């Protein structure tokens, strides 16, 4: 029995990612998820004026900068007890939804489905259809996605000036109000995106598809019309399930969501926050004080156990050749390894179809990706409703100047659902400037390394136990890892010549 270690490199946004995988007789027996990039944002923030977070932190991520802007804004509002007006909250939600919709569509059809054009599937009966739809930069669905996502980001630009990297959310509101022109333009954009989604992605009416409430209903609906079978989603479902992606890549069952769309003048969110405990199958109230980060296997100055972000440190300490292997920390909820993202978001909100699929088949590669497209459908409807609400609140203020010269000392946090799941900013102000800024991204949760108790992170768990028949083309690992939405396409790459024997048993 031989054990070998192979390296797999993954492309990234939230940080470069590589996997080191130990194979024993062709089966993954251990996996180490390696964050290969350290950028030092948390150090850059120290000593700066608090509002600078609104300019600096969106630059953490080119795909979800709106989510960072929102989280930073909420943290600043919490520390100074600022309540933004309803109109501003609605516009913020609209913009974040547009960004998330963009990310879900690009992730699905620019980053995930290109793998279906892999040479190993050339003999599959669907191969020609898959290539026509999903070939990079050329496939019909890819072309439609490029256009739809380009267009939908126009909504963020109408209100915020540009996407990515703008700063239109401010403690106390937003930088400019909606007006009839912006609303009409947004409605026009959304209507076109919806028409494309119905025609090309689901092959049917959105309301009908969103009303499906069980696995049986979903597959019955899809099989009832040729257009639905041949749609992007129909192809995705038929092929994924034919090659068994619904039986592949189970990670942790614990789910975390910070809740979608803060509601005006209220603590509530349109989709609620919560923690789904897989042991009890119960949804528990979210308690941010349960969040803690470990660095036992990370290249940071060590401390015992986990620390809440307010107590956290980010002091790099590169130790090659040790049992530390990543620039990522290991966030945990209490002592639980969790996953976050659209599956968690929709399950915690009790969405019937996703809840049924999860109960029947458990967490898996197909379902994580399906949940992302399910959320895209939900977002299109929710954006329409939000635009109506914005129209109804146009006579209300969009910004109330908090009149702050010197920001109050204290601690606060801002939690939002970014495209990839729960995103948190934790802030401390001393003497009017930022004293500590800790950011826990969704990918930090999902791609976390082992913690101080040796527990693997979610992605690592989802790989362990996987048979890898052909290390030269480990396409299943690609499917699994990409279904976690690792920000960009990840290139699964086994080194041939440098493969080293880890140890022999």
């Amino acid at each position, binding site marked *: 029995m031989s054990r070998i270690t192979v390296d797999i490199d993954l492309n990234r946004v939230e940080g470069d990612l590589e996997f080191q995988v130990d194979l024993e007789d062709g089966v993954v027996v251990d996996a180490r998820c390696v964050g290969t990039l350290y950028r030092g944002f948390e150090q*850059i923030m120290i000593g700066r*004026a608090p509002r600078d977070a609104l300019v600096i932190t969106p*630059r953490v991520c080119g795909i979800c900068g709106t989510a960072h802007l929102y989280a930073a804004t909420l943290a600043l509002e919490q520390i100074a007890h600022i309540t933004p007006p309803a109109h501003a909250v609605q516009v913020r939600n609209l913009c974040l939804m547009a960004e998330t919709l963009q990310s879900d569509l690009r992730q699905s059809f620019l980053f995930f489905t290109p793998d279906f054009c892999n040479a190993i599937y050339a003999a599959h009966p669907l191969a020609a259809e898959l290539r026509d739809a999903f070939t990079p930069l050329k496939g019909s669905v890819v072309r439609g996605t490029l256009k739809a996502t380009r267009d939908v980001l126009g909504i963020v630009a109408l209100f915020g000036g*540009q996407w990515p990297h703008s700063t239109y959310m401010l403690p106390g509101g937003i930088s400019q109000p909606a007006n009839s022109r912006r609303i009409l333009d947004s409605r026009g954009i959304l209507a076109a995106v919806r028409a494309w989604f119905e025609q090309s992605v689901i092959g049917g009416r959105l309301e009908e598809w969103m009303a499906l409430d069980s696995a049986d209903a979903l597959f019955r609906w899809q099989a009832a019309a040729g257009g639905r079978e041949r749609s992007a989603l129909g192809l995705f479902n038929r092929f994924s399930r034919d090659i068994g992606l619904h039986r592949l890549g189970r990670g942790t069952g614990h789910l975390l969501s910070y809740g979608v769309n803060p509601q005006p003048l209220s603590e509530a969110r349109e989709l609620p926050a919560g923690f789904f405990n897989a042991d009890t199958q119960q949804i528990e109230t979210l308690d941010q004080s349960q969040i803690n980060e470990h660095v036992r296997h990370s290249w940071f100055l060590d401390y015992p156990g986990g620390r809440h972000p307010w107590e956290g440190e980010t002091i*790099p300490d590169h130790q090659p050749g040790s049992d530390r292997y990543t620039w990522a920390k290991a966030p945990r909820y209490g002592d639980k390894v969790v996953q976050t993202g659209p599956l968690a978001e929709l399950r915690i909100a009790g969405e019937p179809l996703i809840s049924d699929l999860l109960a029947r088949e458990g967490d898996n590669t197909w379902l994580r990706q399906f949940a992302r497209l399910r959320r895209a459908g939900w977002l299109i409807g929710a954006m329409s409703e939000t635009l109506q609400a914005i129209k109804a609140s146009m006579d209300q203020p969009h910004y109330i100047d908090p009149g702050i010269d010197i920001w109050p000392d204290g601690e606060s946090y801002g939690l939002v659902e970014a495209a990839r799941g729960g995103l948190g900013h934790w802030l401390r102000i001393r003497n009017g400037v930022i004293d500590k800024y800790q950011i826990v991204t969704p990918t930090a949760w999902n791609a976390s390394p082992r913690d101080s108790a040796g527990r693997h992170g979610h992605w690592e768990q989802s790989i362990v136990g996987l048979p890898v028949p052909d290390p030269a083309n480990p396409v299943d690992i690609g499917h699994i890892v990409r279904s976690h939405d690792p920000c960009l396409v990840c290139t699964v790459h086994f080194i041939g010549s440098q493969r080293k024997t880890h140890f022999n048993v």
Partner: protein
Amino acid sequence: MANIVWMQTGACSGDSMALLCADRPSIENLVEHYGLSFLWHPSLTAEHRFGDVLDALLSGREKLDILCIEGSLMTGPNGSGQYDTWKGRAKIDIVRQLAPLATHVVAMGTCAAFGGVHAAGPNPTDCTGLQYLNNQPGGLLGADWRTRHGQPVINVAGCPAHPNTMTRLLAMLAENEPLALDTLNRPTAFFSTLVHQGCTRNEYHEYDIEDNVLGGRGCLFFNLGCRGPQTVAPCNSELWNGQNSKTRAGVPCFGCTSPDFPANRDLFVTPKIGVVPKFLPLGVARAKYMAYKNLARAAAPERVVKREMEP
């Protein structure tokens, strides 16, 4: 046919995401109508693996026409480059190997051009741009570095770089159009316009009607940190996402195409000498500017003073 290798170093991927937003030309059009092909892009290509691409380029089996670098070049800790690696190798070493092979080297975004947001104090990763660290020539490759055709790194500055600026620059390179560069090696075809030009708040600036708090309709230059009158970028002459710009939407220009972005001061406050901004519109003499502003304010029409005009 020209091929492109697009490599990300210390990046947020914002330039890649902006690239997908370009519409004139779009990325699809670049491939279809300008004969450009992506040998490697971290989010767009699926055919090749980075290691194979690297081998083909370094062995000379494949030529390299355009090398685009997105992201700061991390040299830390202690010069090792281990803050940003590919399979344990410092990315800066890979960039140093590839740059001499390319016909054109393009810094896509302010990070690769000047260091950018990651180089903000205290620059925890010891990062730099390809040929500059902020205003200082040098950077990773050195101030005197040139391609084999005698060209420096082309700096397509911006955080992110403007979508259509990126695709138009690539189209120009594909067509072998002559390329003039400014003193910071930014292509003058796109960097000869101030952000101020085309800002819909210009009338407020013209009459010195300046806002003191955010969220208003007036000009953001005097009090709220806006650097539009000093920043060379196409943001208001070529709108973002086909729709708008930050300053039109009431967001100060933070000068993201400039080598010192982000400035090491409160970004929402305009530094001043007396009541006048310390940094004036590009090239303006202080005494004359103050005289003009005093006259301008006196001439301001009621509709502007009352901020009746919507930007």
